[in-house]
């Protein structure tokens, strides 16, 4: 039984890592700019498509028609040869194999640019407007982004293979001194969890230990006073929006081997991540992370057959049920501060 619980806990951490990472970016924007960003799911999706685009670029092929061979339907066979391998040899093959982690290199600048352009171009005009209008404009942006991706990449999911060395499962039980094959878990999911932990840690460290972060935190607490001190807080907040976009994009990139991305993948996560932010407390970074992991773990345990035997269908509603209970008991969420969205 211990092994079953341990496995389910691991699965919860892995799910929670994704929720926490998305909710972190969402709450970062809300905490700094005070904007409820419904386009955040779309940023996750755009990140995932950076990986798709990078792989498509790496797997460009030359097509030659070979009349000596026939296809099953009797036409001359099209022989396809990968271009990158032809140029770079073995090194090209390695690059194709590791296309998903390698695409992080292009994702960071692309997402930073998208984030900054969004903030400067559209969202900054809505700071003083009611939350309802912010929600409308960001939701509209999300739909535009989705439809653009659908137009370019089609409606179907595009599988992104993980590096061959990282396929399969790791025997965690054996590492802990248990017999072999008792607790095994997919390597890529462990990597995703570690990756999330590093990103989350990095964001916190950035805010906690750098001057830039200190100013941003001060701005989050009292924007006007920081402005009066002669600090250009708007520019810093713009960069924070870009940073949130990068976090969402990276979460998307690394998720692609687990779930083939399509244009809708962001919307699927958006609702969940809003629940996470609300449960954690609007504007609270530790709250978003804690609630992400909490809900991931609860969702995982609710899917156990023993639990489902007690309460049928609980795996489908657990997240919303917990959200309702927490909001009834703690209306500001787990780590919510007084005065946020209460004016």
């Amino acid at each position, binding site marked *: 039984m211990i092994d079953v619980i341990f496995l389910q806990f691991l699965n919860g951490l892995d799910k929670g890592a994704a929720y926490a990472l998305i909710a972190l970016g969402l709450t970062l924007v809300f905490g700094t700019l005070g904007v409820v960003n419904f386009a955040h799911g779309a940023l996750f999706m755009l990140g995932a498509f950076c990986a798709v685009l990078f792989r498509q670029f790496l797997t460009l092929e030359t097509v030659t028609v070979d009349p000596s061979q026939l296809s*099953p339907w009797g*036409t001359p066979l099209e022989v396809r040869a990968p271009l990158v391998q032809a140029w770079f040899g073995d090194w090209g093959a390695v690059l194709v194999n590791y296309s998903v982690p390698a695409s992080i290199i292009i994702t960071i600048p692309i997402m930073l640019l998208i984030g900054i352009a969004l903030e400067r171009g559209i969202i900054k005009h809505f700071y003083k407007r009611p939350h309802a209008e912010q929600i409308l404009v960001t939701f509209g942006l999300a739909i535009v982004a989705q439809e653009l991706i659908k137009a370019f990449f089609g409606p*179907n999911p595009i599988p992104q293979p993980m590096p061959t060395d990282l396929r399969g499962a790791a025997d965690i039980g054996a590492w802990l001194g248990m017999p072999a094959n*008792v607790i095994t878990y997919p390597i890529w999911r462990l990597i995703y969890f570690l990756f999330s932990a590093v990103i989350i840690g990095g964001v916190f460290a950035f805010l906690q230990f750098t001057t830039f972060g200190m100013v941003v935190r001060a701005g989050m607490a009292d924007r006007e006073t920081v402005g009066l001190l002669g600090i250009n807080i708007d520019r810093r907040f713009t960069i924070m929006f870009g940073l949130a976009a990068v976090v969402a994009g990276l979460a998307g990139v690394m998720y692609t081997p687990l779930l083939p991305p399509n244009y809708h993948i962001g919307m699927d996560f958006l609702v969940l991540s809003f629940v996470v932010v609300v449960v954690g407390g609007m504007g609270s970074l530790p709250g978003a992370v804690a609630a992400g992991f909490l809900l991931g773990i609860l969702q*995982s345990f609710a899917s156990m057959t023993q639990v489902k035997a007690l309460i049928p269908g609980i795996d489908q509603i657990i997240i919303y049920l917990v959200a309702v209970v927490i909001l009834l008991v703690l209306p500001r969420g787990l780590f919510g501060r007084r005065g946020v969205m209460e004016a």
Partner: protein
Amino acid sequence: MTLLKRGPSRRRVLQTGLAGIIATGVAPAIFTRGAWAQEFCNNPTGDTVTFGLNLPLTGAYAEEGADEQKAYELAVQHLNGEGDGGLLPMLKPSALKGNGILGKKVAFVTSDSQTKADVARAGATRMIERDGAIMVTGGSSSAEAIAVQGLCQEMGVIFMAGLTHSNDTTGKDKRRYGFRHFFNAYQSGVGLAPVLAQEYGTDRRAYHLTADYTWGWTQEESIKNATEALGWQTVQAVRTPLGAADFSQYLTPILNSGADVLILNHYGTDMVNSLTQAVQFGMRDRQANGKDFQIVTPLISELMAKGAGESVKGIFGTSNWHWNLQDAGTQAFTKSFGAKYGSPPSQAAHTAYVQALLYADAVERAGTFYPPAVIAALEGFEFDGMGNGPTLYRAEDHQCIKNVLVVQGNESPTSEFDVLNIVQEIPREDVAYDPAMFGGDLGPAEPVPMCA
């Protein structure tokens, strides 16, 4: 003079009234009975006739939907006498002439059903009422098929089901106006079980993950019955929502559940995701109860096998049809489809194409589009040449009885399309069953409901 101004006499009123009653009520029934019989939903009066293609172009079954669309477009071309004719000359017996249907050119309209039953129903309604579809066809989900089939019965329009595998489609939810060429979950179980016994033995413990809707439920039941008859035990059957995407929380409990076989009652993207994720969890490298852990996919198509890539190698399942069959019909269809689209047709494409041809042929044989006459032409129709061997459209439940294929993921594919191997062709006698087994009532063909 005043008398004349008092209006018609009582006798005159009675005479006129009687004549009116006869003229409007009785006479048409006597003199124009034939014309009455031809008044039915979307009776084509121009020189074209429109098919309504209801296809999941988005959602979990989008890939099958896209392939079905290609097949329908090809079928319409061939029916109109364009292209290489495809399977038209192969159908035996056939009344098809290659000049449209009853001399009318075939056109089509399309609707994206999004792999959702309610959207499929709304799309079919629109195509019938607005676009004048004479026949609705398509769908890659049994939930869609059952919803649309019910609607078509209400509207008096024939529904030629696309890919639907639930026992209920021609079982408890069967309809007089609905016809299915594709096989069903029961036939998958009967076909697959002997192969599973031979490969994996009779002492196995199975764990089911099941798509939570009509198809998943009936496939789970059929496979459970078939494997338990072999002596297998069922450890657990867990339902997962359609389009769940991440199945990890359902996969972890399997690892130490005591099961040594995982049966995936999933289809489309769900199957690609659950199978790939199960392999990521190391299930194919595990040992349980002293045996190698195995995964079985009772219903599989080449599109899914392609999507799952490495993960599908060596895995057993069943298919309605495969482009690699060696009969003349299959070869003709593969050649025609491959030449046009550059890839071999999937089983979804095949069933869609055949359904379009069978409808057209039935109309030609009936000599009219009048649905009850077309239904009568399809019921009990015995034909051959479509790639599945001799086939019977059973009158009792509108289910085609034909051979079923047991397939296995190809260990060493020679091309990107060579992903499944045919292990066995189960003769149709072995997968036939009592039409009353799954209950249901076809309902009446007449009087024909009017759609608008």
